[in-house]
């Protein structure tokens, strides 16, 4: 019984990682209607910046995360303002090409700046160690990630449901032309949303590095997971991404417990099953 409960906790922390990497992707799709395949690369940049600020420069943990978010937010702003903006009105294949181009550019940039070897920053002292849960040691850092994931979920809900910026973004997402006609500066909303989504990717990366290594190429691995979560939840649906993360995280944890050889495989099985039953995802927009 303890094993089952403990594995649930493991699943929950996995779910919160998945949630942090997919939330920004689905928000960007919901508003701008583009799939940003470089989202995983923004995650990677967040990881490397956090490594530099915390692991190399020795800045305080929170400050390092904040600076990583701002750095990646700025990168996202440049990507949207000077590149993506030019291709909204043309064929979707160009979105794929352009964002894939960014994956290659950022992978190489990382190799040039940080080198090709793995980087693992230390876990901050106050988050190091383990608590006992159901008779087993549970890493404090994982509990921290669960808390951050849930906090992000609550904050995003409040932002989109209760703030005027959120309502303006929702109005733009549902009808960008009409939003424009009532006075919404739609290009600026797009920039803001893309920047915001990039910062969420960076948060996932910055939080993830102490337990998952930063390496060139993790962007490509991350985008596959994030994309699957988003598709299962319904592209562009934030609640869907949250539920889908929980489902995939927890089912994968139990699946791994009973069928360890299929560990990397469960996310695909879940996607196939969900899409066979509901091709539009759990929560269609």
């Amino acid at each position: 019984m303890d094993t089952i409960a403990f594995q649930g906790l493991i699943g929950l922390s996995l779910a919160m990682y998945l949630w942090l990497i997919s939330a920004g992707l689905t928000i960007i799709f919901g508003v701008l209607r583009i799939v940003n395949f470089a989202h995983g690369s923004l995650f990677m940049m967040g990881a490397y910046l956090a490594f530099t600020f915390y692991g190399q420069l020795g800045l305080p943990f929170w400050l390092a995360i904040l600076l990583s978010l701002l750095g990646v937010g700025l990168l996202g702003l440049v990507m949207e303002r000077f590149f993506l903006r030019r291709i909204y009105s043309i064929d979707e294949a160009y979105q794929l090409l352009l964002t894939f181009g960014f994956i290659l550019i950022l992978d190489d940039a990382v190799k040039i700046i940080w080198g090709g070897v793995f980087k693992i920053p230390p876990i901050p002292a106050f988050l190091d160690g383990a608590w006992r849960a159901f008779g087993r040691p549970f890493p404090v850092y994982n509990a921290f990630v669960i808390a951050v994931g849930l906090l992000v979920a609550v904050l995003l809900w409040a932002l989109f449901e209760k703030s005027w910026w959120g309502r303006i973004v929702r109005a733009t997402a549902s009808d960008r032309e009409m939003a424009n006609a009532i006075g919404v500066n739609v290009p600026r909303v797009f920039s803001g949303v893309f920047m915001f989504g990039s910062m969420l990717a960076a948060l996932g990366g910055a939080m993830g590095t102490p337990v998952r290594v930063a390496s060139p190429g993790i962007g490509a691995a991350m985008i596959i997971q994030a994309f699957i979560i988003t598709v299962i939840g319904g592209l562009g649906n934030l609640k869907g991404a949250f539920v889908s993360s929980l489902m995939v995280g927890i089912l994968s944890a139990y699946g791994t417990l009973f069928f360890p050889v299929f560990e990397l495989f469960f996310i695909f099985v879940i996607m196939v099953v969900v899409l066979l039953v509901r091709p539009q995802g759990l929560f269609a927009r």
Partner: protein
Amino acid sequence: MMLEVRDLVTAYGQSLVIQGISLDVTTGEVVCLLGRNGAGKTTTLRSIMGLTPPRAGRVIFKGKEITGRQPFEIARLGVGYAPDDRRIFPDLTVEENLEIVRRVTGREGRWTVERVYQLFPLLPGLRGNRGIGLSGGEQKMLAIGRALMGNPTLLILDEPSEGLSPLMVHTLVEAIRQIRQEGVTLLLADQNLKFARRVADRGYIIEKGTIRYSGRLDDLWADQEIVRKYLAV
């Protein structure tokens, strides 16, 4: 002069939908574009609003050229727009659909949420309802109220009477009269000559993207031949 449109040409792809339209709206006037379905009324209004940028011609609002400007800039200059298909934001409430306009245009003035509720008494009872659940008529009223929330000096209404019950048309006529009394200039497009005659001073008849007639609506009403030729179904 509130609005001057000069030699407007607008196309969708290869087909010229508007082929050189010129029209004027004087401050304080109510002007109505008339014509059958597909004549080019909606496209003319969309071109003025910047939603379908014209290929050629000029749009001048209060002496200032606005041709090719972004719709949000035109809205912030004081042009309100209610489209024929209403386009209420489905997951915002009635009140949020109104309030959002005040927030994004930053144009404070005599039109407030409460004032819009007075104008359309069926709206306050629905203030917490999401846009997606409203009836067509309710959406129509809300679309007009939403356009007013930017405190426009020029209000553009596309097919305001379309699909409304006779009772709602009556409410609409009263509302347009009150809006006018508040000093707002109106440019409408409607197929319903009877309705247009009750609210508008002057009209333009559009057919195949050009203006075929312009004049006072009372004169037009009396000219059976023109009505039969351009407006009768």
